[in-house]
């Protein structure tokens, strides 16, 4: 295996996005841990030239990952980047959890487990285009996720892709400790989905999995991409530390350390 660093142009984009994300959360707080684990995935969806997001749909089911999506949308030109400084302020359109008030956002979310069902409805109603949903691993503790897995299989939603940000942490600790998902891939297979597991920080792997999913979109099987990621990715003291699920206030020294590490 070649080291993936600098082998893909998306790497550079995502590095810049991490800076924006950190600045945003330093100013106003926010769910940074999962945002850092998922941002490479969202970056690939928006900048990987795989989708036409005027027609294809991206649904962020894990609405607390708003900082990651807002950062991506601002850099993709959906709204003025300066707005990122106003995140979750009273006068800002950038709501704490993802909201359709923000240009480019297709679905308001915050309560977990609903976005995949919503994506099923979209995929069913718009069979000519691809619907990409991003869920978190902890979110799979919600029963509704499993209702939607049954549904997507029954209705043969080959144009539906669910990317799971599998970072193994949730707000109170590790997923395996709080409510283990055990072999998630096996469960998806059992539910009749096509499953690929990738390194969620390796752009070549993410692109290749998404490409394959797009190629099979006229088929009968919805696709799940389990992206193994690291919570807090890129900032050493945040990595694999569930205390950084949500940051209220980051000290100046930690901010400077984080900046230098990025």
């Amino acid at each position: 295996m070649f080291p993936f660093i600098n082998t893909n142009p998306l790497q550079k984009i995502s590095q810049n996005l991490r800076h924006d994300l950190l600045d945003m959360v330093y100013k106003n707080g926010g769910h940074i841990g999962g945002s850092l684990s998922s941002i490479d995935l969202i970056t690939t969806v928006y900048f990987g030239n795989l989708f036409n997001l005027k027609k294809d749909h991206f649904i962020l089911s894990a609405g607390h990952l708003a900082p990651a999506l807002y950062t991506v949308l601002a850099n993709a030109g959906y709204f003025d980047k300066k707005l990122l400084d106003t995140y979750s302020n009273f006068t800002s359109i950038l709501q704490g959890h993802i909201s359709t008030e923000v240009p480019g956002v297709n679905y308001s979310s915050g309560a977990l487990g609903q976005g995949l069902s919503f994506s099923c409805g979209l995929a069913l109603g718009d069979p000519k285009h691809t619907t990409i949903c991003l869920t978190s691993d902890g979110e799979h503790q919600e029963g509704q996720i499993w209702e939607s897995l049954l549904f997507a299989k029954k209705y043969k939603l080959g144009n539906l892709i669910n990317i799971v940000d599998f970072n193994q942490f949730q707000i109170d600790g590790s997923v395996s400790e709080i409510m283990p998902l055990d072999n998630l891939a096996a469960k998806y297979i059992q539910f009749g989905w096509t499953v690929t597991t990738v390194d969620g920080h390796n752009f070549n792997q993410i692109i290749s999995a998404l490409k394959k999913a797009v190629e099979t979109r006229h088929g009968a099987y919805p696709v799940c991409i389990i992206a193994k990621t690291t919570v807090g990715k890129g900032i050493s003291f945040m990595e694999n530390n569930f205390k950084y699920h949500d940051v209220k206030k980051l000290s100046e020294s930690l901010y400077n350390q984080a900046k230098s590490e990025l």
Partner: protein
Amino acid sequence: MINSIRQSFGDTLTKLAKNNKNIFVVNADLKSSLFLNDFAKKFPRRFIECGVAENNAAAVAAGLAQTGKTVFLTSFACFSPAINWNTIKQSICYNNSNVKIIGSHAGLMSTDLGATHQMLEDLALMRSLPNMEVFSPLDALETEKIIKTISFSKKPAYIRLVRPSTQNLFDPKFDFTIGKSHILQSGKDITIIGHGPILEEAFQVQAKLNLDNKYKKISLEIINCSSIKPLDTFTILKSVKKTGHLICLEDHQKNGGLGEAVASLILTNNFSCKFIHLAVDNSFGRSAKTYQELYNYYGIGVNDLLSAVTSLLVKERSGLSGKRILK
């Protein structure tokens, strides 16, 4: 003449779907109960069966609506909106999706099914949600008119249906308009406001009054408040200003029901009147073979309404009346 509200819903929707290709049904395993067999047979690709999974169904409906469809989400009220309230809040209301939630078997009218199925809290759940409109049809004919009207609207809506066949009360000359109430009978002494087939009791009470020498000059103003949200402020206030007495009658919990909405409306408008709210008072339902047995047990039967009417009249005569405080 009696007719089925549920059948009216199923038949109307099937008729509408013939000309409106955007109408979809997202169902949670209650197709037969909602008279949708014909819809499913005629439009199999527009009939989406989710099984017993009301949360998924609600968000699937919202996702479908985002692709330009008018989606009817069909189940019993005790499951939808009861089980899937947060999905309705987030995926349907906050996302402002064109989803019409059909909650059947509402109220004590689901009789023998008992407490778990007698949904007495649906209006409380749905009234509280921003963007949501709430309707409770009087009879089969009004059900048809409501379903037709809302099929042209893009907003989320909740429509409360009941299980048994019920008396026809709606005047065919009327049209249903969102936010409008209908005065079914004009009167001068007491306003009786309610929603759904229970309003038939008001006519029975009027008939009883007519036969009584002491009360035969008493006339009730009977208002069909099928548009629970938005409320018809004008009609309600005008009537209460005229009569000075108000009884709200409903097959629902007092908490969160129409009575609270109307009471709040009256106080907010600096008005006061003598008010009795006849509704289920902080209790669960129970099984019975007829809803009349249950209505009597829970204090919302014909005799309860008659007692409420006469108690207001007696107080009026003995000087204890709630005459208008502010005009």
